[in-house]
C-alpha cells in the first residue's frame, strides 16, 4: 500500500478538511509540518504553482488544493463514501463545495480588515450565511443526509474558525436566532466523532489568530 503523507500547517482549516477525510476512511498518513514563513524545498517541489498547503503525497506523487485532494481520496478509497452515488445528487454536492470554496474567503476578509472594508466583508459574509441557511441546508441533519460528507467538510470552517474570527475581531456574524439551521448543523457536525476528535484546540487557535490580527493591523 503506497505511503500517504500530508504536508500542512496548523491551524489551517484546509489542512483539517484533508484530516477529516483521511480519518473518516481510516487511512494512515504521516503529517509533515510546513513553516509557511520559511517554505521547505519539499513544498516548492510538490506545489510549485501555488506554494501552498495542504499537499497530499501519495506514493510520492503530489496532489494540491484541498477539495481536489478530497475528490482524489474519495476515488482511491471509496469506503465510507463522502459523496452521493447518484450523479445528480453528486452534481448538487459539487455545486455547494464550489460555493464553499468561492465564498468562505469572505470571513477571512473580516479577519484581515478594519473599518469600511471590514463592514463590506461582514455584509458579504452574512449574504453567504443566508444563502446556506435558505438553500443549502434542508431539514436533514447534515448537508444532504444523515452522515457527514464532502459538502459538510467543505463548510467545516464555519464550525470553529468562524467563531474564532468573531471573537478575535468582535464582529458577530452568526446569530443562532437568525441562522437556526446553520447553528444546528454546527452543533451536530462538531459532535461527530471524527470531527470532534480532530478539531484544533479553541484557546490555542484564539491566541494564534489574535496574535496574527495584531500583526496585520500593526503593519497597516
Amino acid at each position, binding site marked *: 500500500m503506497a505511503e500517504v503523507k500530508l504536508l500542512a500547517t496548523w491551524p489551517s482549516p484546509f489542512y483539517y478538511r484533508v484530516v477529516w477525510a483521511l480519518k473518516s476512511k481510516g487511512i494512515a498518513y504521516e503529517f509533515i509540518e510546513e513553516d509557511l514563513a520559511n517554505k521547505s524545498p519539499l513544498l516548492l517541489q510538490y506545489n510549485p*504553482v501555488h506554494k501552498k498547503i495542504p499537499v497530499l503525497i501519495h506514493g510520492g506523487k503530489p*496532489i494540491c488544493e484541498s477539495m*481536489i485532494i478530497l*475528490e*482524489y481520496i474519495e476515488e482511491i478509497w471509496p469506503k465510507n463514501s463522502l459523496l452521493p452515488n447518484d450523479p*445528480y445528487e453528486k452534481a448538487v454536492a*459539487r455545486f455547494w463545495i464550489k*460555493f464553499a470554496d468561492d465564498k468562505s474567503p469572505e470571513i477571512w476578509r473580516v479577519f484581515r480588515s478594519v473599518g469600511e472594508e471590514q463592514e463590506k466583508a461582514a455584509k458579504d459574509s452574512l449574504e453567504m450565511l443566508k444563502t446556506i441557511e435558505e438553500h443549502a441546508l434542508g431539514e436533514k441533519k447534515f448537508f444532504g443526509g444523515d452522515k457527514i460528507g464532502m459538502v459538510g467538510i467543505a463548510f467545516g470552517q464555519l464550525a470553529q474558525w468562524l467563531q474564532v474570527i468573531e471573537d478575535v475581531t468582535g464582529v458577530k456574524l452568526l446569530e443562532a436566532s437568525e441562522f437556526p439551521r446553520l447553528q444546528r448543523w454546527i452543533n451536530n457536525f462538531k459532535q461527530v466523532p471524527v470531527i470532534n476528535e480532530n478539531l484544533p484546540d479553541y484557546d490555542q487557535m484564539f491566541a494564534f489568530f489574535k496574535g496574527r490580527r495584531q500583526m496585520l493591523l500593526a503593519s497597516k
Partner: protein
Amino acid sequence: MEEENKVTLHGTWRSPYAKRVELALKLKAIPFEYVEEDLNNKSPLLLKYNPVYKKVPVLVHNGKPIAESLCIIEYIDETWKNSPQLLPEDRYKRAKVRFWTSFIHQQLYETMLTAMKAAGEAQEKAIKELWEKLQVLEEGMKDIFLNGTPSIISNGSMGILEIVMCSLLGPYKLQEEVLGIKIIDPEKTPLIFSWLEAINELPLVKETAPPSEKTIALLKFVRENALKSSSA
C-alpha cells in the same frame, strides 16, 4: 414521458461558461434544447433553477437543474459514458486535470478580465500578470501531457481542459485586437500557442463560435462599460 431524458441548456452566446457546456454536449452528441437567456430580463425558469446565483449556464436534465459550468461538465461525463471521455480515467491524472482546469478557470480568466476592463497602469499590471500566469501554464503543460503535447494534437481528442481553454482563450486573436496587445506569443508560449491552434481548427469549435464581429463588439462593449464606470 415528455420529460424523460430531456436536456435543456439555459445560456447566452455572450457567456464563455455557457459555451463550455454547449461544447461538452455537442462533443458527446447529446441532443438538447437551447434557451437563449436575456441577462437583463432573466426568465422565471432561470431564477427558479438557479436561485443562488441567478446565472447561466444551467443544465436541466429530466426536469432537474444543475448550475456551475464545471459541475455540469463532470455531471455530463458521468451520466453519458460514451466517448469522448471529458476527464481522464486514471485518478491521479484526473486530479491533475482538475487542478489545471481550476487554474485556467480562476486565475487566468480573472486576470484576463481585469486586463480587459482596465486602462493605463492598471492594465499594464494585469497584462504582465497574465503573461506570468501563461508561463506557469506553459510549464504545467509538460506536467499534464506527455512531452507537453496535448492529446488534441496527438489524437484529436478534446476534454475538459480543452473545453475550458477554448471558452476563455479560443478567441484570443479577437481579444488581442480589442486590447491592442499580444496575449499568446508563439515564441514565449509555444505549447499554448499550438494547443490553441489545434483547438480552433476543430470543426465543432468553428461551428459554435459566434461571428467575429459580434465577439469584437461584445468585448469592446465590456471594456468601454467598465472604463466608463471606473472613471465615473
